């Protein structure tokens, strides 16, 4: 079990190095780790896994009903969705199958619904249903006035994106993968049948390479001499509303899609909040994850129309994520046989859903370019902390608290996170290194006070944790 975040890198030659520990890279590392004979390195520039796009999305486990039929995206989203739903049940990733409603607000949109149902059919999704205005309002009584009808997609689900990435990475590490954090790859040199990666923390060599660098997949590709695509970030700003808004909405409320993307949705989260977003803005800067006054105003305007009562509720958080748009509708997944490398780029707006599908596909491509995978085995058993609204927090469970009173000592009052859970997170195979990392693992500090009551206490616990001392 090796996770490093400072100091020199091991001298051994890995069989495979995966660059980027987002949801895609982590899923690939986990898939490869099933093959126990392989030595794998997961190399990440940031201090934690999932620090890129994977931490800032709309957290929906799509069915793939609206993908471009026949595309790789369509195939891997549908496949990944099934795999992830199964995996989530196995390891305890919060998922709720709340279903989606594509709401038509004018006659033109209403007229497009049958066409979208047809597209779902072509994507192999057969459960859609057309609803008239009355049926729609019966399902969503708080919906704003003027909605004319909807297409129901019962299979769309909500999921915890943080636990997903973390479960993959944890599983990979438990099965022997080395995770190297704080380790940006700056250059790649070919040395016979090996890749020499020059990283901020030294050199790392590997026989095979996977580029899962998200927004930087084009830059990493360029290090290999490829210029197949350019990533243009497409920013999505989102607003998270207080859990008191949770009663206002039961389904994922989607707009009828346009050329620019899936549009602004209102959706419940697995933690009981309500999400409003995202915007879609093409930008030159791959770090432009700030929110803007214009973006927030646009969102509140849309939100007021979709769910008027939402705007009376308190905002808990505002964030933005960047989709890795490449000017093409599909993923840019490509094998480079002569270099024993696979690029998983352009994983734009369905990467969370498709992650396990992409991982299986990429593993297949690695085998095609010569990697001897060996037999696949079982991964060690794993159970993630249940952060969802449907699970009882440890502080509410008599048995747990009786066995360990630390589970009854609540530190984060808004989200009812106990000191026991924080202790467990700090001692986990992939521990947090910042308040934000701790928040993604436990929800501590993610509530309505945003750490006003517990921030100092959490920083104190984090500072005193052995992980920090070891950094």
């Amino acid at each position, binding site marked *: 079990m090796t996770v490093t975040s400072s100091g020199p890198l091991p001298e051994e030659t890995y069989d495979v190095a995966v660059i980027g520990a987002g949801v895609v890279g982590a899923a690939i590392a986990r898939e490869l780790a099933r093959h126990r004979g392989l030595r794998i390195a997961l190399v990440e520039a940031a201090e934690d896994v999932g620090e890129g796009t994977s931490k800032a999305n709309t957290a929906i486990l799509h069915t793939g009903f609206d993908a471009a039929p026949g595309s790789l995206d369509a195939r891997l989203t549908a496949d990944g969705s099934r795999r992830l739903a199964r995996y989530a049940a196995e390891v305890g990733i919060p998922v709720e199958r709340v279903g989606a409603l594509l709401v038509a607000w004018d006659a033109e949109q209403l007229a497009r619904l049958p066409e979208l149902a047809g597209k779902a059919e072509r994507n192999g999704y057969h459960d859609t249903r057309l609803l008239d205005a009355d049926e729609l309002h019966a399902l969503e009584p708080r919906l704003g006035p003027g909605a004319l009808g909807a297409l129901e997609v019962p299979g769309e689900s909500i999921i915890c994106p943080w636990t997903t990435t973390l479960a993959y990475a944890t599983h990979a590490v438990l099965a022997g993968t080395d995770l190297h954090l704080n380790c940006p790859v700056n250059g790649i040199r070919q040395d016979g049948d090996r890749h020499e990666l020059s990283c901020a923390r030294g050199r790392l060599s590997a026989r095979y390479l996977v580029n899962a660098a998200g927004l930087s997949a084009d830059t990493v590709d360029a290090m290999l001499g490829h210029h197949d695509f350019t990533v243009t970030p497409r920013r999505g700003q989102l607003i998270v509303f207080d859990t*008191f808004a949770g009663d206002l909405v039961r389904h994922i409320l989607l707009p009828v899609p346009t050329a620019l993307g899936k549009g602004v949705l209102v959706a419940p989260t697995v933690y009981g909040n309500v999400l409003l977003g995202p915007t879609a803005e093409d930008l030159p800067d791959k*770090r432009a*994850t*700030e*929110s*803007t*006054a214009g*973006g*927030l105003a646009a969102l509140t305007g849309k939100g007021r129309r979709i769910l008027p009562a939402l705007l009376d509720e*308190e*905002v*808990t*958080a*505002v*964030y933005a994520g960047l989709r890795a748009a490449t000017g093409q509708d599909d993923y840019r997944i490509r094998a480079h046989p002569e270099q024993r490398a696979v690029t998983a780029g352009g994983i734009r707006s369905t990467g969370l859903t498709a992650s396990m599908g992409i991982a299986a596909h990429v593993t297949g491509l690695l085998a095609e370019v010569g990697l001897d995978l060996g037999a696949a085995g079982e991964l060690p058993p794993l159970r993630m902390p249940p952060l969802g609204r449907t699970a009882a927090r440890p*502080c*509410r*469970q*008599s*048995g747990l*608290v*009786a066995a360990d*009173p*630390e589970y*009854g*000592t*609540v530190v984060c*009052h808004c989200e*009812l996170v106990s000191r026991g859970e924080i202790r467990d997170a700090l001692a986990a195979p992939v521990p947090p290194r910042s*308040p934000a990392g701790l928040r993604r693992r436990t929800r501590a500090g993610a509530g*309505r*006070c*945003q*750490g*006003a*009551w517990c*921030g*100092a*206490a959490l*920083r*104190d616990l984090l500072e005193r944790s052995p992980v920090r001392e070891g950094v």
Partner: protein
Amino acid sequence: MNEPSARSVDVLVVGAGPAGLAAATRLAARGAGRVLVLDREQQPGGVPRHCEQRGFGPPGRWWTGPEYAARAAEAAVGAGAELSCGTTALGWAGPTTLDTTGPQGPERITARTVVLATGARERPRSARLVPGTRPAGVLTTGELQQTVHLYGQQAGRRAVVVGAEPVAYVALDALRRAGTETVAMVTGLPRSQAHAARAQWARLVGRVPLLTGAEVVEVLGRPRLTGLRLRRHDGRGAVLACDTVVFTGDFTPDQVLARQGGIALDAGTRGPAVDAAFRTSHPGVFAVGSVLHAAESARVAAHEGALAARSVLCHLTGPGRWPTAGATVRVEPPLRWIAPNRLTAGAPTACTFLLRTDRFLARPLLRVSQDGRTLHCERLHRTAVPGRPVPLSGTWTAQVDQEGGAVRVEVD
């Protein structure tokens, strides 16, 4: 094994801040029976626990917050109340039954009466929809105080304080204590909301400039704050370099429990609606302190606690009829809220109402009316300041028609 243990008390007070402790002290001393006070924090005292400045207690005493908190807790325990810290009230299992948890595990506590004294919280940057990056170094006053006073952590080198309410000056004190330079205070209002002497001291002696009529329109920097973009009301913009920002004031009642219990809230205060006897819409449930009106001084909160104790005792010993609400009390802009805000027959008439204004109002004339009929006029003989209490006498409540429309309070 997952069944919570159960017990019964006469009075359950949720929140061991100034309001809850004062209520418990009175109740226990007057023989209300078993009085239990819960607080989710490990130490009793509420907000004063982390207020190091000398601003607490009866006039002329100037205790620090922790001194005040310790005295209030001692008084409650001395009077015979039971204090249970580290215990969180999670929600309702009946009209006056609460589910709780703590190191001893989940419990179900049934009380004859419940007093909600859960206080207030400052709205964080996100709730104020201030755009920009999400760097480290963005705090509220409460978090700053805990950072500095309870945990002795660093608070950065250069700070900006957003807001000029009295509590913003408390943030200045905490920053000074932490060795952090405060480069400016910023407020959208035309002047400071603190007492003139305090504001002048900060500006002249503490050398902290006050930028008025200015709004923070963007937070800059990652992973740590590097600055704030401001926009002045005349349209000019500026960037203030800093690595810490404290968003102060903008209090909102911590009404989670009240709301979970379906207790009627007041649209103005956003806390539970109460009458002059601190009775909420739910029989047997009272509310006191900052949860009603965020936020007055600890003295006001404690005074309410003591007053409420009297009503609680009446309820415990009396015929036990809970008055149905008559008219409500509403304010018109620029007034923001008023408390109490629920009128009932039989409530004390000698009460004082508290109001808040959104704008500075020089010697305002307050007019109280119902259905077009003027009940009361009163001139305030000073300037009404946003974020500071504006009192209004309650002598007119006897004239209210309980069957009539809302009582309106406006500035003439």
